[in-house]
């Protein structure tokens, strides 16, 4: 059992820390604050600007195989990078291209697809979104019905995807589509890459309960997609998507981000006062804080255990569902405490000029974080479905 850091590890940590301190400047940071932006484009620009800096440094996709642009880091280095990223308050990269479609492309795609798509994903020149869920196929993803019929050597796609994050910015969408209606469910599904500029695609915003526009519906009406955009074999798409799901879930623990959020919570609890006493000195609020912090401290090591096992050659198993469940529950608990700190002030939605001095200073971030944060236990396979997965695959019941 060993999580000590070598001299090389410590040097790496300093390098990461320096890089973040130098490159993550306030222009980028301001644009990335979801709670305060009012203009979607500046958010996208900030993301791309930041991701291009990581790309230039060679750190944009550390987990990829080295041959495609990965960093070849040890588990310890990945842990250090994530820890420093969280501590610096830097958001994770947008996952749809880098962590979701890219592994499918480099694992199951052909050489031409790799050459065509991977470089532009690395450089953040293409923004990807995910076309999995449908109105009738949420946690029961295999019930999807968007069809792709092979007509004259091309796919004719018709259907309706939903809950698509940031489709409004996207250049490409990766979709699960039904290519065979003979068989049911998992069989007959294919994995298709679709250019968002193709005629017949329309994007309709979904405003969420935080009052913002993160999500979309994407409609396909007689959309022609070239055969070369099919990943692997037709009707085998479910296998490709599924291979990556456990991978996706391990990323959902979001320990580094929760640690950051928690330290912000502590800072705020020093300044919020009730009856003359800082909330951080309130024994009851302290218990609420340590209820969450101790769960987070445990999850940090649970994640390390999974990562260490993966480094020994294992692939993440259904245990990764634990990381998703606990990670999202902890994220939500921290958001709940942020909102509790904001108190009644958190209910008001003043415009910018009205915030200072009236208690709305941090309340909007707390409110929006809490409200949009409710989605964390719903998306990516709801926590109910994750519990089903563990019950079946781990407990064997």
């Amino acid at each position, binding site marked *: 059992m060993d999580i000590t850091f070598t001299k090389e590890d410590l040097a790496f940590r300093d390098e990461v820390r320096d890089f973040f301190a130098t490159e993550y400047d306030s222009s980028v940071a301001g644009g990335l604050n979801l709670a305060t932006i009012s203009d979607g484009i500046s958010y996208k620009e900030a993301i791309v600007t930041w991701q291009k800096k990581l790309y230039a440094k060679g750190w944009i996709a550390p987990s990829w195989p080295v041959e495609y642009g990965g960093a070849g880091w040890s588990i310890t280095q990945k842990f250090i990078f994530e820890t420093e990223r969280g501590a610096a308050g830097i958001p994770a990269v947008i996952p749809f291209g880098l962590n979701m479609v890219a592994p499918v492309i480099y694992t199951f795609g052909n050489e031409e697809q790799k050459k065509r798509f991977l470089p532009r994903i690395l450089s953040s020149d293409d923004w990807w979104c995910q076309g999995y869920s449908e109105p009738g196929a949420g946690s029961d993803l295999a019930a999807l019905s968007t069809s792709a019929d092979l007509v004259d050597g091309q796919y004719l796609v018709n259907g309706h995807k939903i809950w698509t994050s940031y489709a409004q910015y996207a250049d490409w969408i990766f979709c699960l589509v039904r290519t065979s209606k003979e068989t049911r469910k998992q069989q007959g599904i294919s994995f298709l890459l679709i250019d968002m500029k193709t005629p017949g695609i329309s994007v309709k915003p979904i405003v969420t*309960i935080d*009052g913002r526009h993160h999500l979309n519906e994407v409609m396909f009406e007689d959309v022609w997609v070239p055969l070369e955009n099919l990943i692997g074999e037709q009707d085998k798409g479910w296998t490709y998507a599924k291979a990556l799901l456990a991978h996706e879930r391990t990323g959902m623990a979001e320990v580094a981000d929760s640690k950051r959020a928690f330290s912000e919570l502590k800072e705020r609890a020093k300044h919020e006062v009730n009856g003359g006493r800082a909330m951080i000195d309130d024994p009851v609020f302290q218990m609420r804080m340590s209820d969450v912090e101790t769960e987070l401290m445990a999850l940090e090591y649970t994640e390390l255990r999974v990562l260490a096992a993966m480094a020994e050659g294992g692939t993440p198993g259904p245990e990764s569902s634990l990381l998703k469940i606990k990670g999202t529950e902890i994220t939500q608990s921290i958001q709940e405490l942020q909102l509790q700190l904001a108190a009644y002030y958190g209910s*008001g939605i003043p415009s910018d000029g009205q915030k200072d001095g009236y*208690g709305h200073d941090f309340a909007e971030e707390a409110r929006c974080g809490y409200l949009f944060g409710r989605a964390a236990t719903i998306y990516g396979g709801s926590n109910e479905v994750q519990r089903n997965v563990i019950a079946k695959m781990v407990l064997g019941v």
Partner: protein
Amino acid sequence: MNFQLSDEQAMLQNSVARYIKDQYNFDTRRKIISSQKGMSSELWTIFSELGWLSIPFSEDYGGYGGGNEDVAVIMEELGKGIVVEPFVPTVLLFGGLLSHCGNNIVAADLIPKIIEGSCQGAFAYLERQSRFEITDMKTKATPLEKGWSIDGSKSIVLNGSNATHIIVAARTSGGQHDSSGISLFMVDADSQGISILPYGMMDGHKAANIIFDGVNVSDDAILGSLDEGMSIVENIMPQVLIGLCAESVGIMSVLNDATIAYTKTRQQFGVPISSFQALQHRMVDNFMAAEQARSMVYRALCAFGDGSLEVENERMRSLHAMKIAVARSSKMIGEEAIQIHGGMGMTDELNIGHYVKRLMTINLMFGDGDYHQRKFNQISYCAA
């Protein structure tokens, strides 16, 4: 022993329920919220005509002479429609303070106007630093040769942008944290020196931050006794809290019903998700939580009822316990309603999130669950 509504109360309930069902659907509400005023003056007039605005006021002022139970009845139904019109700030808070201030001239002037719908009121008490200890107050009223000058900044004044009259709490003696030394002043909303910064609340209601910069008022503007304003506020709290909690109870029943109905129609893995036992048991817990919250409102009603044998301590325990139970139940029910509705529950388009945000806001008004639990503990547990 019985918990049944009287015939009059049943009629009131019926009338409010029917009107809201017929005339206050979710689209109507959405249009009202997005309007400049954030409320409908037409509907307010109708509320007046239907007699709703007269419920808690004494017959001496043309009121219905209703009690806490009548307020609970109407508030539960307003909750079911998540009505955003300013019943709480104008009728319960502003009107309540008028009814309890002992100043018959002001009350006789303004209460009839509230009842007829021509007076909108607001109560400005909260400040940036006060959080839930509302006696933590910096706003000062300084005596002039004649009258007073008020200076300070108030946060989240409900109905602050639509109010014609504002009751403002200001310190007339003592230090920032003293519980006494606070007086209530009646000011016209268009008085010189008042700046009103309106905004919406997450529950769709309208509020404002208000700056008082050398606002001059006469000695007559003081409601009740000098320095004793907080005792008037304490007197109206039972009715205000019971009303808000009854509203929450109405909302919880809507959310639970909607969630159950949704699970019966939503299909997953080829069956309605209502057939999943894990969801069933959670919905049972939500059902029980709603029933427990309702029982607490009944308990508080009985504690503050006319024939109640409860001593003062038990009354306050029941009041705090009600707010605690409602906070606990509505957090669970609100979060579960969204979770079980899945993606749909996250959308602004569906009404679920709007009900939840009203529940959340009510929980934060006049102290959250933890705040009331501390107060409850203080009067319930001590070694001596």
